[in-house]
């Protein structure tokens, strides 16, 4: 690099502008690729954008904190976006009332199997205790999951990553799984994806249609509440049993 470019880079990489702009560019690039590939699940926009950004930060030797100083403005919008989920949810009110009991029972089954299967399978393949505790709330939306992990004695920042990976896996895998299981109803597709894969699953469900998205949002919200209530008394005995 000539000294001139170097100076510009040093200046820009220290300002939040770069992290923010790169996030928006990477995401839009990812969406474009996703559309070109006819929304093939493996070209999930979150997966592509994260991969691009990690490679870029790694190649330029930029610290995550430096990047996040800019990207935090995008991250902040998760809060109001979560609140805004109430609106598509409200549109589904009549159907929610009609399906209330089946939805609650499916939620309970899904919520417990999400935490139990993750911890048991992780333990079977030799994951450490800290990883298991961080893994338990992996199906819950990031802010709740981090809070739960902290309470349980896991590593909140590891949980954040596992949550995102779970979201991507669900968004990528669900369309195939639904073909195998022959689940066609948008409400069911959305609801199951929202339980397993929180916001990223919800985003994927909204790509399908508004009804699937609304049920995913509902599942995500209630699974967050339920897991926050269940895990603190479900997990300690399980960990003692595994030890």
């Amino acid at each position, binding site marked *: 690099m000539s000294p001139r470019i170097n100076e510009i880079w040093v200046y820009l990489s220290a300002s939040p502008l770069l992290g923010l702009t790169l996030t928006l560019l990477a995401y839009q690039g990812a969406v474009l690729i996703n559309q070109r590939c006819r929304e093939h699940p493996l070209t999930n926009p979150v997966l592509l954008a994260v991969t691009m950004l*990690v490679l870029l930060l790694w190649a330029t030797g930029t610290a995550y904190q430096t990047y996040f100083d800019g990207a935090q403005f995008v991250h902040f919008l998760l809060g109001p976006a*979560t609140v805004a989920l109430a609106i598509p949810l409200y549109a589904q009110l009549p159907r929610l009332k009609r399906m209330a009991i089946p939805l609650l029972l499916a939620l309970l089954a899904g919520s417990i*199997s999400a935490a139990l299967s993750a911890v048991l399978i992780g333990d079977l*393949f030799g994951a450490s205790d800290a990883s298991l505790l961080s*893994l338990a709330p992996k199906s819950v939306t990031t*802010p709740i999951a981090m809070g739960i992990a902290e309470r349980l004695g896991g590593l909140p920042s590891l949980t954040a990553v596992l949550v995102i990976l779970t979201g991507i896996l669900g968004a990528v895998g669900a369309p195939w799984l639904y073909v195998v299981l022959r689940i066609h109803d948008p409400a069911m597709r959305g609801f199951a994806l929202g339980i397993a894969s929180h*916001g990223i699953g919800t*985003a994927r469900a909204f790509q399908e249609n508004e009804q699937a998205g609304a049920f995913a949002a509902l599942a995500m919200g209630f699974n967050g509440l339920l897991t926050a209530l269940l895990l603190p008394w479900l997990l300690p005995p399980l960990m003692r049993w595994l030890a």
Partner: protein
Amino acid sequence: MLKAITLLLLFQLAGESISIFLSLPIPGPVIGMALLFAALAWRGGPSLELRETAQNLLQHLSLLFVPAGVGIMLHWQRMAEEWQALLIALVASTFITIAISALVLRALTRRSAPRADPEHRP
């Protein structure tokens, strides 16, 4: 749009305050969502402005997870040591959860509401 954004932030703020004040394990935005839902049910639906703003925000919901996702950089070490166990656990558990939730819901709705949306079948 400005009014709608302010409204969303106000509900988030109320949610955060309740979460902290009652030291609940549930984060503020989720409580904010519940409050807004209750308000909509009480008032009888969102305004056009609020609906459009929410739609714009939720259309790019995926984008909002990107900054946290890049945080995977901070866990290279652990990932390198335990990636097999973590990957198997994540993949298997996610699929098990989706399958159980969807199948339980289908089994229960078939019995209770046999006319559940035949028009949505492709």
